[in-house]
């Protein structure tokens, strides 16, 4: 579903939504290795989307539960695609409790800002 929109080696990578706990570097022990250290994020992933709401809305309404510290995952920061908003889903009879739904900024998939975050030259 999202894979079709995003392209780029997402066939085997899974799109998930999560709450960032913090970011960190994994420093390489090897002193010879002066690459940029890899940065990672500890992310609390949201639960799986509610299948009924997802299919009833033609894969638009991705409603899921907040999982706190139940599903923690370390991901490279480069796998973070965008910032999204998780909004509480207004409760309707028959729906599970405590659902949040994903709101993404429209058009972000087509945009990459460049030029204005140019590096300071050392």
């Amino acid at each position, binding site marked *: 579903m999202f894979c079709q929109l995003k392209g780029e080696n997402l066939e085997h990578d899974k*799109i998930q939504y999560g709450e960032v706990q913090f970011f*960190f570097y*994994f420093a390489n022990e090897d002193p010879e290795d002066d690459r940029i250290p890899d940065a990672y994020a500890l992310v609390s992933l949201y639960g799986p989307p509610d299948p009924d709401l997802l299919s009833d809305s033609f894969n638009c309404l991705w409603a899921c539960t907040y999982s706190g510290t139940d*599903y923690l995952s370390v991901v490279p920061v480069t796998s973070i695609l965008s910032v*999204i908003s998780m909004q509480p889903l207004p409760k309707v009879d028959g729906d599970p409790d405590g659902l949040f739904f994903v709101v993404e900024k429209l058009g972000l998939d087509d945009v*990459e800002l460049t030029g204005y975050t140019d590096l300071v030259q050392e």
Partner: protein
Amino acid sequence: MERAIGDLGKDIRQPSNPFANLSQIALQRSQINALLNTCPELDVNAETIPTGNNVGNGYFLLTPCERYASSLGGGIRWDAVHAQFPHMIGVHRWGQLNLPNGQIARSLYSETQREGKAENTQITRNVKVSCPPEFPVTGTHNCFAS
């Protein structure tokens, strides 16, 4: 759009021939924009980010960050990090990440530091991740992340 028209209109300096003047002003502006887009180093007012925080591919880590590495006093978050990197003895936590699309992702760490300030602040720590298969989920169930 209306804002742009207003801005251009304000710059007219030739009452005898205002429309030709207007089109010249618009032309100059688009030339400057095109130039700055192709050669961003010409922009003297550009925002800059210290190179030390560059993590590649257009991503930058931003403060707050911790001065000393710690194991977060143990706990479930440290367990998750430690499961991924068994040789690691402590983490420096960083608060924010600048994404290539210009957005800034905050984190629980940076956003809970402002407790007692404003209550209903905007939450920008939720992100969309394309989870690589080699980074498993640590948790009570792995039913959806396998």
